[in-house]
């Protein structure tokens, strides 16, 4: 029997619609290409050199990790202003344990993530179970965490780290390994698409034209190979960007394929309807903040490793960059809407502007002004496109 999920026969003709829905993604990609072309032109191609792209990716990794977590927080209808301080604090704790107490690198990384997650529990508890607005709780956290950091480190810069810790942010996956990883991910992509199509077919669901599905795979594969090739021309794939890709993959999976992810979108979209659908709002909110805390821990480790030191000012204002990355990437501050991929592209756009303008020797104050304007314009485009 015909059991299409069509609710109406027009559906078939409207297949093209799924392309239109991704308007926002296209806008972002166009913006990125535009930035690349402009900076490429003004820096005589230097901006697009392998060396600089490698650099750019390393620079964006801390904000990218934070933006991944921030997407969930904002989608859930909250905000986290404390993560800059938490990055500083977890990075500081890691450095103290590593330098002063001589813990090995692996234990130190775990410790930083656990500390971040525990502070996530603290903030999530206030927000979810005590109903204090996240803005206030995390504004408090911003001060508290920075205070703890200054207290623990006694205001000193903690350095130097040993090689294995430094390697987290300053090492590269060499040539062959890079290509193997790239090919493996392309293989998974193809497998996933084929599997998904056969699944839909067996349930007699409508299938997108093969050209669209496999075309997508082709485009993604091309970009994966291009990026690998470009990075390999320099020193290989930087470890922190691999971490970002890995974490992003996990969180994209969480937000699309787990009930927790779905519930977060529902809670942000309409908490009352979510509650009456049997969703435990408090517990899910708590977990959102825990994941944000843990990711702050990862970001703290990456930052400390990159700087080869922990300072009392580390991570200052990073929350704003992370929020900006999410918003530029299409996450709505009203909650219920946003994508991890968008936040990554947002982070890349922000990092490109920093990087490109520095290369053009434009004074720092301009970077603030331009980034601020881009944030406002990005949101305006989003609002205007809805009308």
């Amino acid at each position, binding site marked *: 029997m015909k059991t299409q999920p069509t609710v109406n026969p*027009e559906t078939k003709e409207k297949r093209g619609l799924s392309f239109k829905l991704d308007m926002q993604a296209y806008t972002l990609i166009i913006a990125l290409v535009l930035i690349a072309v402009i900076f490429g032109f003004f820096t005589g191609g230097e901006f697009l050199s392998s060396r600089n792209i490698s650099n750019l990716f390393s620079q964006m990794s801390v904000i990218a990790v934070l933006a991944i977590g921030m997407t969930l927080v904002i989608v859930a209808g909250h905000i986290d202003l404390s993560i800059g301080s938490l990055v500083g604090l977890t990075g500081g704790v890691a450095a103290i344990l590593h330098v002063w107490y001589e813990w090995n690198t692996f234990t130190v990384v775990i410790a930083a993530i656990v500390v971040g997650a525990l502070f996530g529990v603290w903030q999530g508890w206030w927000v979810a179970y005590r109903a204090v607005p996240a803005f206030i709780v995390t504004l408090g956290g911003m001060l508290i965490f920075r205070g703890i950091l200054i207290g623990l480190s006694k205001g000193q810069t903690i350095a130097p780290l040993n090689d294995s810790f430094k390697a987290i942010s300053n090492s590269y996956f060499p040539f062959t390994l890079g290509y193997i990883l790239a090919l493996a991910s392309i293989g998974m992509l193809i497998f996933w698409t084929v599997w998904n199509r056969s699944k839909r077919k067996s349930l007699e669901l409508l299938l997108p034209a093969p050209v669209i599905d496999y075309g997508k795979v082709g485009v993604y594969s091309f970009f994966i190979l291009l990026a690998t090739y470009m990075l390999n021309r320099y020193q290989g794939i930087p470890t922190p960007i691999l971490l970002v890709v890995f974490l992003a993959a996990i969180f994209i999976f969480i937000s699309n394929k787990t009930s927790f992810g779905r519930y977060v979108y529902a809670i942000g979209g309409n908490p009352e309807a979510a509650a009456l659908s049997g969703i435990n709002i408090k517990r899910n909110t708590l977990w959102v903040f825990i994941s944000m805390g843990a990711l702050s821990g990862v970001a703290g480790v990456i930052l400390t490793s990159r700087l080869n030191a922990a300072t009392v000012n580390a991570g200052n204002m990073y929350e704003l960059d992370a929020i900006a990355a999410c918003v530029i990437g299409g996450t709505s501050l009203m909650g219920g809407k946003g994508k991890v991929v968008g936040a990554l592209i947002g982070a890349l756009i922000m990092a490109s502007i920093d990087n490109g303008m520095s290369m053009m020797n434009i004074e720092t104050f301009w970077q603030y002004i331009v980034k601020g304007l881009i944030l406002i314009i990005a949101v305006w485009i989003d609002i205007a496109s809805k009308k």
Partner: protein
Amino acid sequence: MENYALQMRAITKEFPGVRALDNVTFSVRKGEIHALCGENGAGKSTLMKVLSGVYPHGSYDGDIIISNKNVAFKSIKESQNAGVGIIYQELALVEEMSVAENLFLSHDLMRAKIIDWNKIYAEAQKWLDHIGLDVDPQTKVGQLTVGKQQIIEIAKALTQKTEILILDEPTAALTESDVDILMKLLHDLRAEGVTCIYISHKLNEVMALADSVTILRDGQTISTDKIADLTEELIITKMVGRELTELFPYEARPISSENILEVKNYSVTDHVGKKVIVDTSFAVKKGEILGFSGLMGAGRTELFMSLFGGLKGNHTGSVLIDGKETNIKSPADAIREGLAYVSEDRKRYGLVLGMDITKNTTLAALNKMMKLKVIDNALEVKTAGDITYKMNLKAPNLEALVGQLSGGNQQKVVLSKWLLNDPKVLILDEPTRGIDVGAKYEIYKIINELANQGVGIVIVSSELPEVLGMSDRIIVMAEGKITGEFQRAEATQEKIMTCATGGKNS
């Protein structure tokens, strides 16, 4: 030549791809109550938005003539100044402000450099007396019932020297007693010469209130008649363009003697400590449709919200489902025990408007869409597709956001969502509020079918014909207590109203 307060001639309004109004003619005589009827999507709201300047002059074709003068409103402000006041279904009051502040929000009294509060309160009191509403002008609007808020909206329109008052579904959220107050108010206003355009799905009100009726269908004027020349059946036939044999597709069916839901000595205290339900006991049988009638504030919604675990506050008493004692503390518990609750306010409590149809449909049954803790998207789309197909949901595709659907289709999504859980007891709170006649009929048919399958059904409704037309048995509540119970055969509007207003009768 008749004396027209308003004439709209040959109005055509197009949206990309749709002709919402097609050469519509609409004439309203001075000082009459003129009902505008039509199914959802017939073009009533669009026509009123053209009239009130929401769609500015130039964005439509045709002429609007008010008091024999051609008008061309470019904004709502301009139409207001010309004496056109519109009151939407969704009220536009500031809940955190007082009655008086709301009444004069855009009035000159508020525009003064220094606001004379005493004068405002005095003036507000005068208007409240005039329309017969007994509230303190300093009360916050948010503390009033929807019915009273509605009346305050009307009063607000009157303070702005409104000559043509448009009411869009004013009684959708009102109880019978509030409706009576509203109807009386409208009669009084007519006596004072105010012209009123009344948009409503409730044809009994239209029959009782209107002097003339204009019917729209698919963006076209079907007819304008004096009320004397019409009957409810005739209006419905004209609205839907076909004859509806019956409004309520009730069919007698054997009802099991087994209780599926049994509530004993149930009391509820709300979060501010007020007793809202006092020592209530009732039972629903397998396959039975039990109607719950009563005035707004009788505690029906609180009772079922609390049974479903969705009300803040405490409750005592016992609840048995399928003969087993339950301990429901949250909606999740309730769902597990086999309850489903379709709320009276679907936009607020029923749907995530920014999510698509598929995700809304599976939200309460996501655990059934999982394999190894992972959502199986293909299965999810398949399930949502099948159930919404059965519900005859009309939507461009399953990825459409539910916020873009009509009320009837939204309600079908809510029903689909709950049916995925195969509930033992389905509680429907005002299941057809704000839904057009055609979709109503479809929803009634779904309800019947579920009852046939042995689901215990509770219909909470403020519309007496609905309760009478659909229920096997009717329970009436007043002030948190059950005040009456009738079998289908013995129930009448009069008996129910007597119980609902507090008189014991059973």
